[in-house]
Each structure stands twice: as structure tokens, then as C-alpha cells.
């Protein structure tokens, strides 16, 4: 740590408290919607609460990031702060990896152990007596108890939309890297083009994904309720989709900032963070494509 400088300690800020209130109100509202809705009671109040919370969150995000950007532009951040942000972002992405790992773990467990056991395989196969005649297959279209969980008619094959989506995301990882190199070389115009292309690719991915969901729900009867295949399928692709949405939003903000001329060739951590995040989302998709669609 040879190059320590005096460290900038920011002044007190109201944003953390605003963020807490926002998050608390949002989630409390959401929980009330679910619980009251489940009981068949009115959810209007809960919706109001949820929306208010969401608005507070939006206000907070603008305010907080706004002040960080302002401080960064004022040159208050040292190289050491920059390193703190980098560590912070890397570990944040690691935590996201572990979040997905939980769902992938569930998928592997179900496919390798739970479903075969229910079908009578191995020394735990005695659980087959629960539902006699149940056949362990994957994709699981016939659930152990079809009364409670009617299975899907069919599942989505990998070589149609999912393949196109793979190509979209992989090329978007490529375009965002080109944009990054252009930024480092100081070509503002090139950055705009390639970053814009990345965002378009991300959005097209989302549109196709939405189409796939509609197809699954309306024509294939593949839903969240259709047993463990639907559960894992929508959980994994759904959370991934949410992350793509977030990533696209981040890239979009970066594009706006490029237009405003915020970044310099060697000071653009915000951009890099968004790009890292984008690569992470891409890698998760590749894992999804292999384990959810192909295998």
C-alpha cells in the first residue's frame, strides 16, 4: 500500500435513511399485498403502500447516485477510493453469483436426487411408494401428483428462441467491450454507437424472453404451478431476466452520462462497473442455456 493518500471521508448524508424507509415500506407493502390477497381481502391499501415505497426508492436512487456522481466529478475521490469501489463491486457480483448458485443447486439436487428417488431409484427409492407408477423423467412433464400440480404439455426446446437469445447476449458482451476500449482510447463517438448497440441487444433479449413466457403460459401450459420443472425454469430465467433489466438500465444511465461527457479516458469506474455486471449476466445466461435448456 505504498500510494496511500489522505482518504476522503464524505459528510453525513440523508440517503441511507431514505433508502431504508423506502425499502422497508416497499417490502411491507408487497408482503401485505400477498397476504391480504391470499385471504381474499382488499389490497388497495397495500398497493398504495407499495407504490409509495417504490417512489421513495426511485427518489433515493436518483439522489444518492446523483451526489456520488457530483462528488466524483468534483475530483473528491482519490485513486484509493476508486479501489474501494472496485472491491465493493467485485464482491457484490460475487454475492450475486452465490444467489444464483442457490437456485442452480436446487435444480441439480432435484434432477440428480429428488426426482429419481421418487421414481424408485437407488437406496432412497422407497419413496416411490408415495406415488406408485410415477416415472422419473426430465423434463418432468408428468408430476407425481398431477391433481395438485398438472404438468406442462411441452417444454421449450433450446434451438429456437433461446439460441437466438444466446447469440444476442454473447454479442452484446462483445459490443460492450468494444465500447470500453473506445472509451479508454478517448473516442467518444464510437463509445456512443457501441454502447447504444449493447442496449438495443439487451432490450431485444428482453422482448424475446417475454415472448417465450407468453408462449409457455398460453400454449404449453408451462407455468410456475406446473411442478418442479416450471418452478426451476421460471425461477432461474425469471431472476436472470430481472438482472438483464437492471443491467440494461445501468448501461442506459451510462449512455446518458457519456452524452453528458462525464467520463474521461482513465476515470470511468461507473462505466466499468456496469460492464462487469453485464458480463456477469451474460455468463449466468450461458449456464442457464446449458443446464436449463439443453441438458
Amino acid at each position, binding site marked *: 500500500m505504498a500510494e496511500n493518500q489522505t*482518504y476522503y471521508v464524505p459528510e453525513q448524508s440523508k440517503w441511507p435513511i431514505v433508502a431504508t424507509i423506502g425499502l422497508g415500506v416497499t417490502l411491507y407493502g408487497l408482503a401485505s399485498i400477498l397476504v391480504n390477497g391470499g385471504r381474499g381481502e382488499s389490497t388497495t391499501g397495500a398497493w398504495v403502500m407499495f407504490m409509495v415505497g417504490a417512489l421513495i426508492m426511485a427518489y433515493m436512487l436518483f439522489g444518492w447516485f446523483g451526489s456520488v456522481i457530483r462528488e466524483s466529478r468534483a475530483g473528491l475521490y482519490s485513486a484509493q477510493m476508486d*479501489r474501494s469501489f472496485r472491491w465493493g463491486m467485485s*464482491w457484490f457480483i460475487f*454475492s450475486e*453469483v452465490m444467489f444464483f448458485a442457490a437456485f442452480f443447486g436446487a435444480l441439480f439436487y432435484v434432477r440428480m436426487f429428488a426426482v429419481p428417488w421418487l421414481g424408485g431409484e437407488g437406496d432412497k427409492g422407497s419413496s416411490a411408494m408415495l406415488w406408485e407408477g410415477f416415472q422419473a423423467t426430465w423434463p418432468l412433464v408428468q*408430476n*407425481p401428483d398431477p391433481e395438485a*400440480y398438472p404438468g406442462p404439455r411441452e417444454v421449450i426446446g433450446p434451438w429456437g428462441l433461446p439460441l437466438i437469445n444466446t447469440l444476442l447476449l454473447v454479442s452484446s458482451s462483445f459490443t460492450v467491450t468494444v465500447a470500453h476500449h473506445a472509451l479508454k482510447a478517448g473516442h467518444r463517438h464510437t463509445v456512443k454507437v457501441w454502447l447504444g448497440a449493447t442496449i438495443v441487444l439487451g432490450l431485444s433479449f428482453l422482448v424475446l424472453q417475454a415472448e417465450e413466457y407468453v408462449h409457455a403460459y398460453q400454449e404449453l401450459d408451462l407455468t410456475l404451478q406446473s411442478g418442479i420443472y416450471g418452478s426451476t425454469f421460471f425461477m432461474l430465467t425469471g431472476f436472470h431476466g430481472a438482472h438483464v433489466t437492471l443491467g440494461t438500465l445501468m448501461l442506459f444511465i451510462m449512455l446518458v452520462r457519456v452524452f453528458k461527457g462525464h467520463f474521461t479516458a482513465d476515470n470511468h469506474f461507473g462505466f466499468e462497473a456496469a460492464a462487469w455486471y453485464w458480463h456477469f449476466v451474460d455468463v449466468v445466461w450461458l449456464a442457464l442455456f446449458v443446464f436449463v435448456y439443453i441438458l
Partner: protein
Amino acid sequence: MYLVFSFTMFLLGGSMAMVIRAELFQPGLQIVQPEFFNQMTTMHGLIMVFGAVMPAFVGLANWMIPLMIGAPDMALPRMNNWSFWLLPCAFLILVSTLFMEGGAPNFGWTFYAPLSTTYGPPSTTFFIFAIHIMGISSIMGAINVIATILNLRAPGMTLMKMPLFVWTWLITAFLLIAVMPVLAGVVTMMLMDINFGTSFFDASGGGDPVLFQHVFWFFGHPEVYIMILPAFGAISHIIPAFSRKPLFGYASMVYAVGAIALLSFIVWAHHMFTVGVPLAGQLFFMYATMLIAVPTGVKVFNWVATMFRGSLSFEAPMLFAVAFVILFTIGGFSGLMLAIAPSDFQYHDTYFVVAHFHYVLVPGAIFGIFAAAYFWLPKWTGHMYDEALAKTHFWLSFIGMNLAFFPMHFLGLAGMPRRIPDYALQFADFNMISSIGAFMFGATQLLFLLIVVRCVRGGEPAPAKPWEGAEGLEWTVPSPAPYHTFSTPPEVK
């Protein structure tokens, strides 16, 4: 802030434990309904783990790590602030479930499905979001700790010169970032099962309730180390200070903590021996669990070796530290007994397990926190605490704690199941002793409150270095340490 919050939660969680022990004072149902009893055990566990122990350690980290490594503050102060404020928010939601229709969560702090999904009360959804908020808070706190340690050390402080408390926290933070998202994942699956008709934990849809336990304990076992490693760190400062000798085997301590952390990822199924894990799995998890005893043993050996031929003196922090070493070792041994799969079939879900984890958590985590608090109170407040009162606090806690938890070993071996409000008559005597001990321990903690308040208010002024044998950057600055102490970093040889 963290410490105040944590102590409040400690008292709240503690009073729930008092309800539990009051009910168990005598056989039969006297004070509360079984339903409420279950809510109490659940909330007691959740509040102590997530509300008391974890925030206390984060509080210590926030205060001590910058001082120990010569940094002005944590690396990302605003994020830090947010992760603090999220905690009261999460606990407000959690505690509010007590007043909801259908009552609070009643399925134990491990919230096994399907008790928590198909058969859970409606408030479970609120509980899930409370866990999410806590998880966000812990992850951000941990990211902050890592960024601080990796980036803000004073020039010359190499990794292997870092104080052990910093090392243990670095590793704890890593564990937190690795497993809190998994907890978030498992509660999210619960949320979906409850509200959106998925079948992760429902075998009739092809899922598996045992899947819940696997994912939960993949989080759960590292979590118990999250609650003990920082205490290891603090104890490794206190014992050398009062032995007036450097710590024996610094490097081996660091490696031992690392080994414990890594192993903690591959032992989770020792909590599940009885659910029908395949034989090969049982063997693997049994041996892996026993392996953890090796680095743990290294640490205990090093602490003892540090004291050996030291010129010992027994101020309150040292008393707590010595008790820590002895009692934690007892808890480690009962852990080994539980780790033997065939004998665990007998002990599982009895009071023996309750005795085990209270021996590692009360004299482990909680005594570690007390020891650290007394050790650094002079540095925080600029005043010495009242040594005589602190010693009283120690002895009453020590006796109370042993009275409360030692008899539980016998109860468990004799077959008393855990989480029940009533029991067979032959368990009556030990339960009464246990309850008396628990009341004693609980009441004693008010004394701690008194000592701390008096120490903050005034008392003999503390010098920069109140303990003769203590080492480290934190003792080079005046007591109390000035705001944003090291604005320009000090040099470390």
C-alpha cells in the same frame, strides 16, 4: 450504534428466553399456550442470531478495524450507514409479526419446510422479507469490511502483520458474502411456494422438502462460524495482553481460521443425519465435520500455550477470555459427539443439541463480545469501567450460564426433545435447575448495562494504553479515540 442496537435485541431475545424457561420451570402447561411457546423459541433464536450476535460483531468491526489498521473510517461509509439502518427496519417487521393474525413464525429458527410453507402462519411472508432486508444489510456490511481491510491498511502493514481480529473478520466477511445470498435464495423459494404455487419443497410436484434443509444448512453451518470467528479474533488479542507475552503461533492461527472457514462449506449435512441422507453422504459429512476439530484444536492449543508461563493477571476481559477457552472447548467436544452419525441418531433434536450450541454460542460468541467490550471500553469512552462490578458480572454470568446449560446435556442424553412446552416428570429436577440458572444469567445482564452506562458517563480517565501487555495501533492514539482517527495513515514497521 450497532452495539446499542445489538444490546437492545439481546435483552428482547433474552426476555423471550425467560418466557421459555419460565414455562419449562415445572412440568405441565402453566404460563403460555404451546402455540405462543413455539413463537417464542423461534423469535428467540432469530433475534439472538441475527439481531444480537451478528450486529454486535459488525459493531466491533466498525469501531476497531479502522483503528487497528490505521484507517480514518470504513471504506464505504455511506453504504455502511445504510446497512446499519436496515437492521432496525428488518426487526421492526419481524417483531410486528407477533401482533398479526395467526401469530408470529412458529417453526423454529431453522424454519424447515413444509412447516414454514404449507403449514406456516400468514405472517411468514413478512418474515421472509425481514430476512431479505437483514441479508442485504449483512452483505453490504461484509463488502465494506473486506474493502476496508484490503484497501485501507496503513503503509507497511502486510497481510501477515494484520492483527488477528482483522484477519478473522476478513474471513468472516468472506463467509457472509458467500452464504447470505444462499439464505436469500432459500427464503425466496419459500416465498414462491407460499404465494405463487411453485413446488420447490413439495414432493407431489417433484420437489423435495429435504432440499430446503440442504440449502438452509449450506447457509446455516457457515453462519455458526460467522458468529464465532470474530470472537476468536478478539480473544487472540486479549489473552496475549493479560499474559504479557506475544500470541503463540500467529501464522498457524491465521491458517487455522482459514481452514475452518473452508471446511465449514462442506459439513452442512451433519445437521441432517436423521433425514435420510444416503450412506456415502453420511460418512463424508461425518468425517469432514470431525476434521474441523483439528484447526479448532490448534487454536485452543495456541491460546493455552500463550498463557503458559505468562505473567497472568485476571481483569474482567481476561476472565471472560479464559472462560471462553474452557467452555467453548466443552461445546466443541459435544459437537464432536454429535458429529458421529450413528450417535447423532440418538441425540438429534434433543436437549443435548441445545446444550451443545448454547455452550459454543453463549460462552463463545457472547462471552467473546463481553471480553472485547471490556477490553476496548476504555478506548471508546476514555474512562475505566468499574472493575469490581465487572468481575461480579463475570462470575454471576459464568455460574448462571453453566447452571442453565450444563443440565441440558443430561436432559438430552435422557431423551428430552427440544422445542416442547411440556415434558415428562423425570426431567423435572434438571429443568428447574436450568431455569434458575437462566434467570440468574438473564438478570445479570442488567448489571452489564449499568457498568457500561456508568463507564460512558464518567469514571477514572483512561490512558492511551490501559492494559500493560496490549499491542496494536489502537493503543497508540489517545482514549477516547478522536473522530476519524487516522486521517493520514501511520507507518507500520
